[in-house]
């Protein structure tokens, strides 16, 4: 007689916070184990690799600074995405919105001619508007024409990438860039201050932290936040309650796109000091922020923690490249795995699973 292991799935009525935390931890651990196989393939002991990553990203001042500077764009994009995802608007376009924020900031820095003290605030406002505009296009296309948000936001990413390429190869190519494809360096007044000896452009970091708190309050304590949640959790109820899908969708994408745009401002004004190739401005921050927001269970405050975690992973990517000579792309594999295990393990939150033997 052959017996097989079967399992039964029942809905779990309430989920505790510690359960969510444990399951998330399990997902990350599982991804670490599977990713370990890759280190093995390359002949590196996974334990040794993870030790190196931790030491390189948290163990010294330089590594810690790199971790934080990677976390800044993830924080801003991630907080914005939690709001969009709350309303079940699938904004996969933070990458493009970030780039358009960078473009707007670069435009203000190079061509506005504003006097010194006004320049940086104008760049942040411009960057917010640039990202928001890029995010509002898919929002309008969705509510007015019913276009799929995943597709449109993604296509807008590609368009933004080639738009930046066009600017730096064409009209905005800097006369002083000596043949390289980037703009001139921004004037001094457009540089963000950094913490001494690091690349942490702290005004963007403070902005991200403040916005995380503000968004937490918005979602949980205001009428707009309530409407966003109802639209996402129960669209039918939202309709009966007279909540405007048009207004809410536009609001969440104004926030989500705008925040990604702010992240773009931070990258060009705090790190690169010019507009340059899209893959240099953003190393996939907009995509990684999707995982950041999802791991935070769409809670803006939790994004502070999850963005730091992915800051560690990204800084760890530099470590495995430099110390171990392994490809940086391992980070993308790892990110994909985390996201898989994360959503795969959500079944443990929504359902209770019991195993039994069946014939």
């Amino acid at each position, binding site marked *: 007689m052959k017996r097989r292991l079967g399992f039964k*799935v029942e*809905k779990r009525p309430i989920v505790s916070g510690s359960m969510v935390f444990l399951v998330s931890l399990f997902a990350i651990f599982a991804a670490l184990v599977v990713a370990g196989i*890759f280190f093995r393939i390359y002949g590196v002991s996974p334990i040794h690799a993870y030790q190196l990553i931790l030491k390189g990203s948290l163990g010294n001042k330089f590594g810690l600074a790199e971790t934080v500077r990677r976390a800044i764009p993830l924080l801003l994009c991630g907080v914005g995405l939690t709001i969009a995802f709350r309303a079940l608007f*699938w904004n*996969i376009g933070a990458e493009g919105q970030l780039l358009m924020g960078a473009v707007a900031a670069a435009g203000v820095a190079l061509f506005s001619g504003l006097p010194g003290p006004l320049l940086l605030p104008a760049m942040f406002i411009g960057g917010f508007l640039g990202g928001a505009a890029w995010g509002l296009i898919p929002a309008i*296309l969705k509510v007015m*024409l*019913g*276009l*799929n948000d*995943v*597709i*449109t936001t*993604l*296509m*807008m990413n*590609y*368009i933004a*990438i*080639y*738009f930046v*390429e*066009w600017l730096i*190869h*064409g009209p905005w190519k800097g006369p002083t860039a000596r043949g390289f494809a980037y703009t001139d360096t921004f004037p001094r007044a457009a540089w963000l201050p950094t913490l001494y000896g690091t690349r942490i452009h702290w005004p963007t970091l403070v902005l991200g932290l403040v916005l995380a708190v503000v968004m937490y309050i918005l979602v949980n304590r205001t009428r707009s936040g309530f409407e966003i949640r109802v639209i996402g959790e129960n669209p039918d109820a939202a309709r009966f309650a007279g909540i405007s899908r048009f207004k809410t969708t536009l609001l969440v994408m104004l926030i989500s796109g705008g925040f990604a745009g702010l992240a773009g401002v931070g990258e060009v004004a705090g790190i690169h000091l010019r507009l340059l190739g899209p893959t240099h401005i953003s190393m996939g921050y907009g*995509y990684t922020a*999707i995982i950041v927001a*999802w791991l935070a269970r769409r809670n803006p405050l939790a994004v502070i923690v999850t963005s730091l975690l992915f800051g560690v992973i990204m800084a760890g990517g530099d470590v495995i490249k430099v110390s171990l000579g392994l*490809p940086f*792309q*391992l*980070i*993308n*594999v*790892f*990110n*994909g*795995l985390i*996201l*898989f295990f994360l*959503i*795969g393990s*959500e*079944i443990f939150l*929504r*359902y209770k699973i019991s195993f039994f033997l069946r014939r």
Partner: protein
Amino acid sequence: MGWETWIITTLSRSLAYGTPLLLGTLGEIYAERSGVLNLGVEGMMIMGAYSAFTTAYITGNPWLGILVAAVVGGFFSLIHAFTSVTLKANQVVSGLSLTMLGLGLSGVLGRGWEGKLLPVAIPKITISGLSKIPFLGPILFEGQNLIVYLAILLVPLLWFILYRTRIGITIRSVGESPATADSLGINVDRVRYICVFIGGVLAGVAGGYLSVAYRPAWTEGMTAGTGWIVIALTIFSFWNPANGMLGAYLFAALYHLSYRLQPWVSPELLKAMPYAFAILVLIFVSRGTLQKRMGAPAALSLPYTRGEE
């Protein structure tokens, strides 16, 4: 170049570039018809492209490459099937992670292969008698390869299965109303697994076509959003294989025509055009679907659990 040659070249190239779009779209139509949205097409395609290229490079047999691409695409789709059907996870996020995983994995594994050219690609064939037919001959029967024809043959086959057979009714009923299908004794999960698998196999072949037939070389991220355009074309097709064919070739023609603007438009902006087209194409078909997602399977992207809702 005379007008006639100009049109012939354009259409012939559209057929060549439309083939991977068509293969991917046909597969995604089947997956979505069964109720599973798979946004992992880009990831499955790039894994197909990578595995086809390396297999063909090592063995010298491009057809073996296509076969391996089909298997790899199918395998990857099963990951999505497992999370979205068995674990009932969010299909949007699951598909996205499949794409991230595929792009990352092919980038890691393909590092040593970057920029390599394939010595033996899938041969272009010319059917000597038929290629003499005026106008149609040079488009259809000159310099295309076997996969182009196989993709075209798949259209009536998959259309027939979907609309004229019991299997097709089963698939569509699972995508429209899984509870009803379940009560009729249909194994909803199994149907969904099979349809997602078909989608994965076809996406894998589409990727393989890109790296061993269309442009026989490997570069990281060479699918460059083709998988996402497939998702857009699936919506454009109203989940009907025949419309899928129309959409794929139409899109390929637009893509090819945009390169005719080269003397006037900068190359960077030209590269952005396919993605703008994808949005425009969706705007165009949306006029009829303003009120409802007409044609979309009713249970699309909704996990099914017996006894719920």
